[in-house]
């Protein structure tokens, strides 16, 4: 079992650009959540996808959007990048119930 896989592992973008991050969930998992982790802080919830729909959203602007595909994989898109978007972006997969979230290794996004 490959676990949760994310791509790419590192990314450097220029302010104002757009970025797409990808996540493949752990085998058998149908729910995908995205988190942003700034240096020295705990992860912050961005949104969650289940059955290809956004089920819950955290306090992030509309520049952050996502998608879940029929095979349960997911994408996180961020438009009009700001310097403050630099962070480790984490994908977590789980079953809908019981809920135990397993995280990928993350994508380190640097905005310059």
């Amino acid at each position, binding site marked *: 079992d490959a676990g949760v896989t994310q791509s790419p592992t590192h990314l450097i973008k220029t302010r104002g650009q757009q970025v797409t991050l990808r996540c493949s969930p752990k085998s058998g998992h149908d729910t995908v959540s995205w*988190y942003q982790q700034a240096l020295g802080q705990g992860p912050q919830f961005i949104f969650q996808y289940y059955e290809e729909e956004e089920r819950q959203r955290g306090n992030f602007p509309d520049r952050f959007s996502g998608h879940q595909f029929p095979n349960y994989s997911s994408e996180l898109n961020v438009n009009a990048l700001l310097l403050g978007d630099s962070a480790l972006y984490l994908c977590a997969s789980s079953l809908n119930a019981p809920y135990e979230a397993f995280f990928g290794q993350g994508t380190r996004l640097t905005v310059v």
Partner: protein
Amino acid sequence: EDQVTQSPEALRLQEGESSSLNCSYTVSGLRGLFWYRQDPGKGPEFLFTLYSAGEEKEKERLKATLTKKESFLHITAPKPEDSATYLCAVLILGYGNKLVFGAGTILRVKS
């Protein structure tokens, strides 16, 4: 507002020196409490889930306990390889499954 506070922020231990990490929470409705271990530059690694007050779980040198307002992660006779950031998160009652994390405790174990 749902809030999770971890203490201490950082902890230095000698190898074999047992201690505890604290996670206190103020949430609207708790469905579960999670402990994760995170190594630098990597994603959090799942350790435990606790669902009700009085529940305890153990894994090697780690033991997690839960009360109505806080959780403890006890580390017995730690080794240098236990050095990591330990994150606590609460699962909030409501539609969907949202984890609210604390800022973590950075643990350093010296030999």
